[in-house]
């Protein structure tokens, strides 16, 4: 099976999984006490009015009918309208507004994690049980065990409030046109300045969200690199007098990345979950905050729409992981009999 066919097959396999996720979430959300209309209107008089609004949103139909109608709408690309979070707004539009913000945050957090963790892990493995290794292990232990919201708050206190180096909130999209948008970008004269603003706004939330991933990847990188460097073929290379740098670069690095790729692939969805707290602390209105608002306000269409995005992201992460395995390690096959 070619890589292309394998990828297509994995995507086809993902469809029933996604429908399964949708089904479970739909019935779970509908099972929670309270409905969007009671939250929208709060404690308010007028049973008639509540009934009218429920009918308007189709909430007076039996849950199984609503489920089937929802699936039919999704199949046509219609995710419905937000009931409470942004009353009346198409969920597709809501997601398209919020998704880039979260993607920018998540992707940059991952970039930060990978760029810092892989060298740190390799150095730590190379200098095993030396002070450098101890420092790296302590750093990663702290990173794994410190709650991200606390890291965020500390970064804000130090770098935003006291040192006035970085902004404490909002994100700026680097492609924003100068002179447009919010107060942050309206004053910018050039695209270069927008990019600079974007980076400055991104640094603190990126570190906040990326620290856990960085710590996890460092630990995995170190342990797999330590194991790899013990392998027979590495010992043989050393015996031949190959330099340590070449051994790591040419012989040890690639095979040692397999477990790291697993962590990165599956970590993508974890990071989306982590974005909820980071977005809250930094006042960023992205997907993380959207799903939380949706759940709190029983905004069924928003919860379902964000579930689709999170579900697809998770499945994409899994598929990319599998494909990367095959690419990095030729021994891994595309799942067919040879």
């Amino acid at each position, binding site marked *: 099976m070619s890589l292309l066919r394998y990828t297509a097959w994995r995507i086809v396999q993902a469809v029933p999984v996604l429908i399964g996720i949708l089904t479970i979430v739909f019935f779970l959300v509908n099972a929670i006490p309270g409905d969007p209309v009671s939250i929208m*209107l709060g404690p308010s008089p007028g049973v008639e009015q509540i009934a009218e*609004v429920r009918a308007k949103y189709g909430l007076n139909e039996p849950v199984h009918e609503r489920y089937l109608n929802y699936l039919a709408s999704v199949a046509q690309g219609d995710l419905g309208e937000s009931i409470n979070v942004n009353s009346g707004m198409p969920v597709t539009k809501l997601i398209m507004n919020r998704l880039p913000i979260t993607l920018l945050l998540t992707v940059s957090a991952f970039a930060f994690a990978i760029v810092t963790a892989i060298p740190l892990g390799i150095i730590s493995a190379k200098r095993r049980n030396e002070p450098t290794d101890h420092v790296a292990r302590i750093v990663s232990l702290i990173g794994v065990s410190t709650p991200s919201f606390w890291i965020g708050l500390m970064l804000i206190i130090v770098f935003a409030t006291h040192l006035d180096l970085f902004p404490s909130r909002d994100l700026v999209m680097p492609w924003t046109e100068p002179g447009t948008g919010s107060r942050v970008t309206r004053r910018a*004269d050039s695209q270069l300045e927008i990019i600079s603003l974007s980076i400055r706004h991104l640094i603190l939330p990126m570190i906040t969200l990326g620290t856990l991933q960085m710590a996890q990847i460092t630990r995995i990188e170190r342990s797999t690199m330590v194991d790899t460097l013990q392998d027979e073929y590495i010992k043989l290379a050393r015996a031949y007098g190959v330099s340590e740098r070449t051994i790591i670069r040419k012989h040890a690095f690639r095979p040692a990345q397999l477990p790291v790729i697993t962590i990165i692939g599956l970590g993508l969805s974890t990071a989306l979950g982590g974005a909820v707290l980071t977005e809250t602390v930094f006042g960023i209105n992205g997907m993380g905050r959207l799903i939380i608002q949706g759940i709190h306000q029983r905004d069924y269409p928003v919860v379902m729409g964000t579930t689709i995005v999170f579900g697809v992201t998770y499945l994409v992460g899994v598929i990319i992981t599998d494909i990367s395995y095959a690419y990095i390690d030729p021994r891994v096959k595309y799942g067919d009999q040879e």
Partner: protein
Amino acid sequence: MSHQLPEITRRGLLGSGAAVSAAAIAGCIGGSSDDGDNELYFTQEKGWAYKFDPIVANGVPTAQVNEQIYEGLYTYNEDATNSLVPVLADGEPEVSDDGLTWTIGIKDEATFQNGDDVTAEDVKYSFEAPVKEETENAAEVNMIDSIEAVDDKTVEFTLKYPYAAFNTVVIANIVPKSERDGNEKDFGHSPVGSGPFQWVEWEDGQYVLLERWDDYWGEQSPNISGVEFDFVTEQSTRVTGLETGESDVIETVPPQLWEDVKNMNNASIASSLGIGYFYLAFNCNEGPTADPQVREAVDYVFSMDDAVESFVEPAGVRQYSPFPQSVVDAWDFPADQWAEIPHDRDIDQATQLFEDAGVDKDYAWNIIVPPDDMREAIGQSVSNGLKEAGFNNVTFERLEWGTFLDLYATGSEDDYNMFTLGWSGSPDPEAFTYYLFAQELEGSTNGTYYSNDEVDQLIMDAREEPEQEARREMYIEATNTILEDRVHLPAYNTYNSYGVANYVSDFTSHPSSAIIPLSTGYNNVNVE
């Protein structure tokens, strides 16, 4: 604990910061230019609806924006003491003797931002649309029987019954019929009103931008060139934004950060008591709390004064009746007399009353509260008091809003014996009596199921009594009984509070949380 920080100049962060980072990151200097405008950056607590259309908009954040774009026939005065201040109206309303007909004239000079005159047709349309379109706001105008445009500048409302609090209805925003009729779907995306600020743009989840309408028809033009709203739900992040100069004004200073904001070098707090009421309510329908003696015993198990002092102040104040201070002042209610009714904490007295009422020590108490720290603390105080009085089986639950709203008005002992809740309304006693105690609203907004026909009759009669003094007497009589019977234990009211940067002048807080006064008869905000 408070931070003592060096004073940060406004936009210093954006200006110098951009320059520094551009130099550091891109290797060139590209500081942002200060264009010398005086926009106000206002950070709200929550986000907006999809449409900035008062006919369909439901919720305070959207209303705060709409109040800058649109105007009503009247507005509340500075203290919201129920005195109508004409805005589009040319004077006081003419009310018929039977209270059924309200005739209102419109100012000749009043115009919309599209240049059209504000006419009686626009007013008629604005009040009829919520009912015709079955929007969430329909209930607010359901006492109107018919509206007639007598002429271009005179409108006549005929009511289904003499609704005494109709003056709280005629503050509704007026929209231009020519812009909205037939364009209902898109009107809220490019709204047009008659207010001093006009629409520029908005970005979902990020900001709403308004600019000063230079041709505003009214007497006073705003000092500020515009206002940009954004929202940050996390309290500490909002406060940090004020500290760092990212916001000029922030909405709602929480009690735990009150001192921090108060002690900031570069900001202060503007606050006024809201038109609100927070309380502990009893299930008078089922269970031991149906007995007034038991309710009195609960009053003895804890000190509401201490609870409010510990958990609400300085962000709010103790309140002894359902009526906020603005209503008490405007109606000259006997607040001092009502303040004498609650008991101080006395566990022995409480235990005795529980015994006399025959409440079993093994009884499973159930207290529910919504997801709000202050209301949770009140409920928790009662729970602790019951345990001190010898009850070991006390369930105290903080529920999500959706779950809480499903339970609090069922009247079932299985769902609750007590709950804490709040009510914010218009500055008329009706808002704090009819909705909370009227028998016809049991299961809707009245979760107490307190059945006292005399009190109910007084509340219903007062709604339709046009004579204010007669209404006042009715409300006093009903409230005396309600408080003595301990249907509720009134708890507190909160301030509408704002953190305001020092370079913002003349910013003031209004008792109505929907009103952010930027350019009014009593203030004109400036950013220096």
